[in-house]
């Protein structure tokens, strides 16, 4: 504080002598900064505290948890709950932990993400660059689809899948995820491709490239940011999905989220808080990693797609 006031005094003397000159002096402890960083700090704590409790609890043994000090760090660190959550926790008849659900989720997420993005990017490209007849109507219908609550469509889809003969299979769920991802992803890609200079597309046409030629050789290589955005949206969305997972699969093909629910919400036996915490963190780990790895690209892609719509 003393330094600041001395510096301010010096600045005041200087300015009195010759008027303001050079960069305007800034104070580290100005009211603005206190509000700004104070708010950020409070909000950060608010969001991080539950995570802290989860991590700490998952590393404690049950006797220690029963003491009730949920904020205190573990006296004796144990990884037993993590191992149990991953490979021993029981859901229904299976006692092989979350690992089964994890691999189910991988088998659901990977094909769903690839399929939905492949189709949506071509959709968006066609809507943005090849203004076919009825393109606007098609687009409006697609967007309206994004506003219809999922729950309305659950039962009809159950019947459709049953009639096709893929009800309860992973294939069925993959198709459902791809369809429900379509409106928002198509909108995303369409806006991105619309923001690209149209002359580029025209130049490619004069050069003789066709629908797929332009898409694969001109547009695709320029669209990395928006593909990253789409991948993040889809991976987190599909990984975190619970509703479709519980409706359209059977117990042995349940995704991780459903299995987590079954572990945490089981009413029999003792509540193993440490195992529940570990299982929850394990389930949330995949979207978390995706965010950390690609956060920068994500922000850039969102901005790039949002400039023009």
């Amino acid at each position, binding site marked *: 504080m003393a330094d600041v006031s001395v510096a301010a005094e010096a600045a005041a003397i200087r300015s009195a002598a010759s008027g303001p000159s050079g960069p305007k002096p800034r104070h580290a402890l100005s009211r603005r900064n206190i509000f700004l960083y104070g708010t950020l700090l409070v909000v950060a704590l608010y969001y991080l505290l539950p995570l802290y409790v989860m991590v700490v609890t998952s590393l404690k043994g049950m006797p220690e948890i029963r003491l009730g000090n949920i904020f205190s760090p573990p006296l004796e660190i144990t990884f037993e709950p993590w191992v149990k959550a991953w490979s021993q926790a029981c859901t229904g008849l299976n006692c092989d932990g979350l690992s089964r659900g994890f691999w189910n989720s991988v088998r659901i997420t990977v094909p769903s993400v690839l399929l939905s993005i492949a189709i949506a990017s071509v959709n968006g490209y066609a809507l943005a660059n090849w203004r076919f007849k009825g393109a606007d109507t098609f687009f409006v219908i697609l967007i309206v689809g994004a506003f219809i609550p999922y729950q309305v469509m659950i039962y009809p889809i159950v019947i459709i899948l049953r009639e096709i003969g893929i009800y309860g299979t992973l294939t069925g769920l993959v198709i459902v995820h791809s369809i429900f991802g379509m409106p928002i992803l198509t909108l995303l890609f369409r806006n991105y491709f619309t923001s690209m200079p149209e002359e580029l597309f*025209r130049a490619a046409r*004069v*050069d003789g*490239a066709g629908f797929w030629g332009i898409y694969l050789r001109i547009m695709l290589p320029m669209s990395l940011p928006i593909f990253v955005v789409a991948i993040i949206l889809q991976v987190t969305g599909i990984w975190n999905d619970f509703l479709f997972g519980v409706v359209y699969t059977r117990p042995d093909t349940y995704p991780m989220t459903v299995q987590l629910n079954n572990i945490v919400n089981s009413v029999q036996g003792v509540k193993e808080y440490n195992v529940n915490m570990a299982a929850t963190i394990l389930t949330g780990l995949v979207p978390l990693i995706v965010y950390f790895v690609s956060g920068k690209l994500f922000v850039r892609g969102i901005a790039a797609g949002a400039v023009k719509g």
Partner: protein
Amino acid sequence: MAAIADPSVSIQNLSLNFGSVSVLQTLNLDVAEGEFIVLLGPSGCGKSTLLNCIAGLLDISEGRIFIKGKNVTWEEPKDRGIGMVFQSYALYPQMTVEKNLSFGLRVAGVPKDEIAKRIARAAEILQIEPLLQRKPSALSGGQRQRVAIGRALVRDVDVFLFDEPLSNLDAKLRSELRVEIKLLHRKLENTMIYVTHDQIEAMTLADRIAVMRGGVIQQLDAPQTIYNRPVNRFVAGFLGSPAMNFINGHLEAGEAPVFKADGVSVPLGRYQFDNESGRAAKPCVFGIRPEHIEFGEAARAMPFTAESTVEIVDPMGSDTLVWTKLGGQIISFRVEADKTLRNGDAIRIGFDPARASLFDAETDNRL
């Protein structure tokens, strides 16, 4: 307009509507083999639209387009024998210059050695050999536009289409590249259609200029004819910088017609009327270019002279623009930069009515 025997590009009764908005109206244009045509007009006049129609990038509503005697109205852009250069260069950002140049050829499945040969030739003509391995982002604006021209060049086409290719460049580069395009045309002798809103580009490059407004070609002629004998007031005002002076008044008929405006009467004995009916008495607009007005001693020798006072002096470096009043209306004229004139100076100005243009005040057409 004289019919061209074997046109390189022929546009017949072309119309284009976007919904209820008519952008081009039954437009006809014949471009001779090896001719350099400039489509000139203010923004929104349909000149770029016309070019896109010729390129096949826009579907037309009515009419036909022939290139090299072939009806290409329904052809894809690549099958029309055209190369196009865009204002924003439109280079593929992820490809090197070489790949940019060869993209069209690779799509068409041209053999590798042929591609290499054509790229070498284009690179030599445009002097971009050292840039071949660079990405467009590592090029300056002028270099990028050279590459864009090269991309049209390697395709070995009959007709080059330029869509405001120099508009994104700074003034110095623009004039450099303008000369290069002119040289390129002389070397290749291809038909070129060039869209611009810059009258200097139009005047310097064109064999013929088509001045457009509202989707209609107003005048199609050699640059000098358009400059000296504009068919209507729009063309007269659009070409020339500083712009032509217009004085409102009326025409008095008779053996020797006279233009009269508030205390000024200009004898039109030397003026060439477009047709005899133009001589009838009516309100009209008298147009004279600033560079055609003489001043001082030179003015005395002119068929028409008048006394006036200097209102404003605008020095422009190479010459000076002087604003004064004639017939109660503000006009400007050009004097050499070394003439020192001050506001309020009494001066004598004069001009030859033969170099003037007279327009009907109602229809704006040339009399």
